[in-house]
C-alpha cells in the first residue's frame, strides 16, 4: 500500500506539472478582436496567420502590440485572421506549418525565437510570404521586421533627464542581450544629451537565455525600490512583463516610471497612470499591419525593414500629458535623429 500511495503522489505531481503549463495559456481565442468589425473583403481575400511564441496575447506590451496590428488588418483590410500560440519549444515549427497549410499568406512569426524554424519552413514554402519580428532571416520570401529601438529609447532618456529633479535616473533591462542593450544605449545617450552629468543606474534581470527575466516583476520592483530610495526619480524598464514591478515601485514611492513597447499608460490603473511618465513605443502593430497590407497589394518580396523614427515605427507616448512642457525639446531631438545629425548608439 505504501508503494501505491507514493505512486499516487507522483502521479499527482505529474498532473500538477502538466496542468501548470495548461494554465499558462488560457482560452481567450474565441473572439480574437473584440469590438473590431471586419472590413470589406478584398479579392482574393487576405488570410493573415500570426504565430505567437509561448506567452502570447495578454502580456500588455510586445505580443499585445502584434495582436493589435493583426486586428487592425481585420478591421481595415478585411483580413481573415488565424492565430496560433506555442505551448512549448517544439510547437514553433509545426505551428508555422499549420498556418501555411491553412492557406494563410502572409504568416507572421512574433519573436526572434522563431528564426531557425522560420528559415526551414519558409525555404520549404517559397510561395508563401512570411514576416518575422525582431530578427533577420535572409530569404526571398521573408520580410524581416526590426526596430531601431535605440531611437525611441533616446527620446525617453531625454525626457527622463528633462523631468528628473535629482539628476539621478535608472534603467532595468530584461535579458542582457544585444536587443535590450540597444535600449540601454539609446536611453543613456538621450539622458546625457540633456544633462552630461546625469547619473544613470543600469541593471539587468537575467543573462542571455534566461527567459524568466521577462516575467519577474518582483525582481524589478526590488531594484526600483532601492534606486528610488537612493534618490533616483525616473526609471525606464525594458523587460516585458517585469516592467509592472517598476510601476508598482514608482506608485509606492511617488516617482516616475517609463513603459516600453506599448503605451502602458493605456492599460494601467488610474493610480498607476499618475506615475507613468511616458512609454518608449516599438510599433510591432505597425509592422504586422504594414506587412499584411504589403502582401495584399502584391508586394511579396523579402528583405529587411527597419522601423525607426522616420516612419513612426518607434517613438514615445504622450498619454497623461506629463511631457507637455518638454515636448518641443523632444521633437527637436527627434528631428535631429531623423536628419542624421544625431546618430544614436546601439551599444552601451
Amino acid at each position, binding site marked *: 500500500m505504501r508503494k501505491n500511495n507514493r505512486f499516487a503522489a507522483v*502521479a499527482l505531481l505529474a498532473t500538477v506539472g502538466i496542468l501548470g503549463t495548461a494554465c499558462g495559456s488560457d482560452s481567450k481565442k474565441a473572439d480574437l478582436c473584440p469590438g473590431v468589425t471586419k472590413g470589406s473583403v478584398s479579392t482574393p481575400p487576405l488570410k493573415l496567420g500570426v504565430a505567437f511564441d509561448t506567452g502570447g496575447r495578454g502580456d500588455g506590451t510586445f505580443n499585445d502590440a502584434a495582436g493589435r496590428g493583426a486586428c487592425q488588418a481585420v478591421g481595415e483590410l478585411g483580413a481573415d485572421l488565424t492565430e496560433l500560440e506555442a505551448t512549448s519549444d517544439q510547437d514553433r515549427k509545426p505551428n508555422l506549418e499549420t498556418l501555411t497549410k491553412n492557406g494563410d499568406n502572409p504568416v507572421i512569426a512574433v519573436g526572434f525565437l522563431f528564426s531557425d524554424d522560420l528559415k526551414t519552413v519558409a525555404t520549404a514554402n517559397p510561395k508563401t510570404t512570411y514576416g518575422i519580428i525582431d*530578427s533577420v532571416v535572409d530569404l526571398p520570401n521573408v520580410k524581416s521586421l526590426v526596430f531601431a529601438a535605440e531611437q525611441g529609447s533616446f527620446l525617453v532618456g531625454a525626457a527622463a533627464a528633462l523631468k528628473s529633479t535629482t539628476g539621478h535616473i535608472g534603467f532595468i533591462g530584461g535579458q542582457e542581450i544585444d536587443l535590450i542593450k540597444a535600449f540601454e544605449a539609446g536611453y543613456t545617450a538621450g539622458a546625457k544629451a540633456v544633462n552630461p552629468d546625469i547619473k544613470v543606474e543600469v541593471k539587468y534581470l537575467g543573462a542571455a537565455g*534566461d527567459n524568466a527575466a521577462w516575467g519577474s516583476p518582483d525582481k524589478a520592483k526590488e531594484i526600483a525600490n532601492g534606486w528610488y530610495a537612493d534618490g533616483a526619480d525616473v526609471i525606464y524598464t525594458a523587460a516585458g512583463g517585469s516592467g509592472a514591478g517598476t510601476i508598482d515601485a514608482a506608485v509606492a514611492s511617488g516617482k516616475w516610471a517609463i513603459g516600453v513597447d506599448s503605451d502602458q499608460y493605456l492599460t494601467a490603473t488610474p493610480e498607476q497612470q499618475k506615475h507613468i511618465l511616458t512609454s518608449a513605443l516599438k510599433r510591432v502593430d505597425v509592422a504586422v499591419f504594414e506587412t499584411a497590407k504589403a502582401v495584399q497589394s502584391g508586394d511579396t518580396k523579402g528583405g529587411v525593414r527597419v522601423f525607426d523614427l522616420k516612419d513612426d515605427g518607434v517613438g514615445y507616448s504622450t498619454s497623461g500629458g506629463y511631457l507637455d512642457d518638454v515636448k518641443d525639446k523632444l521633437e527637436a531631438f527627434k528631428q535631429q535623429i531623423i536628419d542624421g545629425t544625431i546618430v544614436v548608439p546601439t551599444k552601451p
Partner: protein
Amino acid sequence: MGDETRIPAADGVTRGLSKLMTPKLENSKNGLITTASSIAAVVLALVISGIMLKITGKDPINAYRKMIETGLEHDKLLEALQRATPLMLSAVAVAIGFKMNLFNIGVEGQYLFAALIASVVGAAVSLPAPLHVAFILLVAMAAGSVWAALAAVLKVKRGVNEVISTIMLNYVALSVIQWLFDTWFRDNSKSDLNVKTKVLPRSAWMPDIVTGRLSSMFIVAIAVVALYWVIVFKSRFGFRLRSSGMNSVAARTAGISSNRMIVSALVMSGAVAGLVAMPSVLGDIHAYGQGVPDGLGFAGIAVALLGRNHPLGIMAAAALYGFLESTAGALQIQHVPNSIIDVIKAIIVLTVVIVNEAVTRSMNRRTASRTSSALQVAKPIGATA
C-alpha cells in the same frame, strides 16, 4: 554493509523470490487486463475532457473528429513520432527508477545538464561523422549519469529521500546550466539574439530518417526501449534490480546489495535521461540554446505511468502523447483552446492511477479468495496422509 555476505539460505530465498516474480504481470491474461485498464483510462479521460469542452461551449465531437483527421495526416504522424522520441527516452529513464522503487523526478535537470555538456564537448572535438555522433551520445549519457549520481550518493550515504533530492537537483541544475552557459559556453562570435553554444561541426549532425520530420534518434529511442526490456526484464541484473525494488529486505537476505542497486538504477536512469534532448541537439539546433525544449522530464513521468513501465506500454503511451500534441495547432484553428491537450494529458494520468488502483484491488481480492479456497482443498489431502 552486511548486505554483501551471502547467507546459506539465500538460494532458497532467491528461488522463492523468483517464484514471486515470475512475472504474474507478464503472463498474457494479466497483460491483457493491464492493457485494457490503460485503454479504459484513456477513454475515460477523453470522456471527461469532452464534458469539459461541452461545459465551456465547444463541440467535443467536432473537436475529436478534427483531432483524428489532422492527426492521421502523413506529416502529422511523423510529427507525432518525432515528439514521441524524447518522451520514450524520458519515460524509460523514469521507469528504470520505478522498477527499483525509486522515483527519479530529476530527469528534467539531468537531460538539460547533459544537453549543455554534450553540446560543448561535442563542438570541441573533431571526429569522423558516425563516431562523432556516437561520442556525443556517450558524453550526454555520462553527464546525465553524473547528475543523477548526486541523488544516488545522497540517498546511499545520507539517507536523503530521492524524491526530494531529485526534485531539488532540478533547480540546482537550471542554475548551474545558466551559470556555465553565461560564464564560459555562450558563443559570442555572432550577435544573434538566439543565443547558443558553439554550433556543432557537420560531422556531428545526425541525419534525419525523413528530412525535417523524423530524426534518427527515433531509432535510437526504440533501441533504448528494447535494451531496457532486455536489461531490466530479462537479465540477471534486472532481476536483482526488480527484486530489490519489490522487497529490499528480502533481496538483501538473498545477497543483493540494495545500495549498489540504488546507485546502478539511478546512474542508468540518468544515462538514459541524458539522451532526451539529443533529437534537438543533434538533429535540429546543433547546439545548446533556447530552442532545446524543456518539460520533457516531467512529461516522461506521465508517459511511464501510463505505459505502466512496460516497454511496449511506454512506446504506446509516448506515441499517444505525441499524437495529442501534434494536433494542438489544428484545434486552435477550430477555436478550441490548445490547453485542452494539456488537460487531456493530465486527466489521463489521473484516470490511469484510479483505474490501476481499482484493478489492483479487485485482483488482490481474487487472488486472496483463490488462495484461501486452494488451502481449503489442500487440507483434507494432508489429513489423510
